[in-house]
């Protein structure tokens, strides 16, 4: 497919940030206005640009006079930048979109956001909005991916119970399970934390992970890469949007929506208090949830929207319909970010997952 959008200038920065040991990349890409410039919209996001590009193009179709500056970073770096801007009451972006929704909730709880003031907020289900300031834009299930070749003889696991049984029964999976490094990835931590509150399977799951020397990675794409090339047989808690769009192109991988329950994440966006172009930001959010935006998000990116997601995923789980558990945008998410709680949770994770040093 040839994209109609050709950015007039694509400026990429690869900035090395000296925050701790983690190497972080901040990318800034600018989409110039297509007509006489009347404004600029700065979007800060953790979403891969490939996912956002069609939305930005559609936005400029409607608002050709507005240039878009797109800042992409890892969730933790983005959170740090946005938090410090909020604390200094300075400008960072007109719109902040992140899959790290707990951090988004914390920022909104800290008074960093402003009321969106749009009728689209009222259309959203309750779980997908908070205070009219933070709204969910996507509907992305946490899925399992599997290597089809590895499961040519047997059935791939359909639920966590299947996965736990599989990990207990055979030694085949040793070193062949990949998942998020929950210390590195905001989304991975969020999914893990939700798993721990959702069902009692969590304890047995991480015990199995530990026994089978689970491999952990920063990002969904790396997990999927390993499953695709067969180094891993199963990837656990991968973002469904990435998995499905890869599976569309790559016949080697299969996607499973766990039937016991399927967590659903809505990437959340808010307009910062200090936004310079809140009007454009609101227009962008309205576009994302408009029929046009829904068509884009439901398309090849498989991001879906809270409005269209439940219908789009219905029937994709095979015989048994998965129980979708959207993670609500509420201050309860703050608990997962609590210093003490996080430290306890991570230490429990490490104890289980990290093999005892000989």
């Amino acid at each position, binding site marked *: 497919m040839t994209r109609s959008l050709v950015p007039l200038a694509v400026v990429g920065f690869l900035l090395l940030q000296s925050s701790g040991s983690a190497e972080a990349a901040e990318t800034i890409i600018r989409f110039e206005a297509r007509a006489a410039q009347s404004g600029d919209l700065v979007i800060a996001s953790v979403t891969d640009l490939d996912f956002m590009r069609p939305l930005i193009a559609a936005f400029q179709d409607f608002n050709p006079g507005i240039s878009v500056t797109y800042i992409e970073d890892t969730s933790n770096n983005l959170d740090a930048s946005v938090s410090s801007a909020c604390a200094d009451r300075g400008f960072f972006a007109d719109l902040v979109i992140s899959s790290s929704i707990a951090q988004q909730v914390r920022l909104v709880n800290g008074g960093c956001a402003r009321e969106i003031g749009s009728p689209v907020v009222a259309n959203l289900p309750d779980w997908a909005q908070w205070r009219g300031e933070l709204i969910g834009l996507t509907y992305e299930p946490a899925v399992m991916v599997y290597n089809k070749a590895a499961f040519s003889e047997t059935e791939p696991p359909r639920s966590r119970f299947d996965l736990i049984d599989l990990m207990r029964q055979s030694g085949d999976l040793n070193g062949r399970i990949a998942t998020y490094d929950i210390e590195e990835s905001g989304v991975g931590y969020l999914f893990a934390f939700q798993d721990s509150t959702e069902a009692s399977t969590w304890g047995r799951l991480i015990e199995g992970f530990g026994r089978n020397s689970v491999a952990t990675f920063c990002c969904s794409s790396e997990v999927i890469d390993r499953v695709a090339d067969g180094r891993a047989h199963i990837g656990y808690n991968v973002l469904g949007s990435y998995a499905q769009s890869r599976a569309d192109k790559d016949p080697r991988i299969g996607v499973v929506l766990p039937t016991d329950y399927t967590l659903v994440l809505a990437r959340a966006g808010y307009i910062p208090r200090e936004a310079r172009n809140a009007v454009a930001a609101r227009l962008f959010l309205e576009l994302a949830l408009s029929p046009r935006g829904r068509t884009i998000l439901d398309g090849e990116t498989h991001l879906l929207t809270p409005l269209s997601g439940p219908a789009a995923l219905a029937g994709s789980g095979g015989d048994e319909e998965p129980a979708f558990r959207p993670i609500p945008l509420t201050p*309860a998410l703050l608990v997962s970010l609590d210093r003490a*709680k996080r430290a306890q949770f991570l230490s429990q994770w490490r104890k289980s997952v990290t093999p005892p040093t000989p």
Partner: protein
Amino acid sequence: MSLAARLATGPGRSIAWRLTLLLTLLLTIAAAGTVVAALSYGQTAATRAFDRLLTGAALQIAERISVVEGETVIDIPLSAFGLLSLASEDRIFYRIIGPEGQTLTGDETFPLPDASAVGEGPLLYDTAFSGEAVRAIKMQRFLAERAVRGPITVIVAQTLRARSELASEIVARAVIGVVVAGGVTLALALLAMHLALSPLRRIERAILARDPKDLTPFSTTTPREVEALVAAINRFMARLDRRVGAMQDFVADAAHQMRTPITALRAQTELAMEEDDPRKLKTLQRRIRDRAIGVSRLTDQLLSHALVTHRADSATLEQIDLRRVAVEAEREARRTGGAEGIELDLPADPVMVQGDAFSLREAARNLVTNALAHGKRPVRLRVSVTGDGKALIAAHDQGGGMSAVQLERIGERFARDASNPQSAGLGLAIVAEVAGFHHGSIRTATVPGEGFEVGIELPLAEARPTGNPEGDAV
């Protein structure tokens, strides 16, 4: 303009209008009071309801603080935040402070309550954080472990959006309730008032529908509140009836009584005109004079009688001294002529009675005139207090008094002495009437050799302190 004045000058000063105004006023005051109470109640109720959530969340967090391997472990339960999320639109803040004052987790800058308000138990306080007013609770948990000893302070706070929403909802409902209840109450009150006032309209219709000549009392059943009014109307009509009757009597009497003597007078005058004999003429002239005096006295007495009858209905009784009445009556009698040489026999002390001075004077004058006309001089007008404690004003003469038949008819009108052309027959009728409306009676006494006495006996007025003629009988 004061409310009272406004009420007094309202349209037609109608009772219904006044009641409507007062009821509306009262209901408005009551409604305003209820709304004010609801405002305060709404605030209190909302605060209480959400303070419980806050307390519950703080308790849950405090409960999960423990010491493991010498470290303070704070395991914030999800349920605590779930509880706070019941106020779904509110921001949540928390801060947990260790025994040494170091913040263990949460918002390090969250303000503590004023030092003045420290207490042992949980403390709820209002403060502001991150640009918004918040309600906070401070709760302490004392750890007494080997490694950690001292209070752990848990602070949980929440913004006020849900509280104010609940409060305004309560108030809005209360206001709607009050307005509806007030409207319904007013409507029912007006209906009740309409029904309650319907007897008045019935009476009004009865009065309007009445024949103007019909002066009989109303027999309509009336509510107790207007009984007095209807009774007053009935009394008024009875008086009017009496007055009209008296007037008709007077006209009839006057016509009847005057016609005969005037006709006689005319006949005598015509005879006199024909008479040539000076001696006979002189006789006729004397007769004409006697007749004229008779007519004059008759006129006088008719008018006097009419006046006395009128005053019996309308005069207010006052404290008067009978001695004064006697003196004035004597003076009056003398002025009208033919009453020279009347003696006054008065006691030294005042003889006070409750009465109408004019009527009593007329009665006394008629007693004197009567004695002069029918008795034998000298005539004495006597005032005294009788043995059984009554006041007496009487005329005494030296004559033989009345016959038994006359005594029997005493007080009747026109019981005249046919032999005396000067008698109109009304004198003692007037006396009897005056005695009647003073609750007194006519007294006659014939003492052989000493003459005849006729007078009015009245009850003595109750003694009043002198110097206060107005009295203070309340």
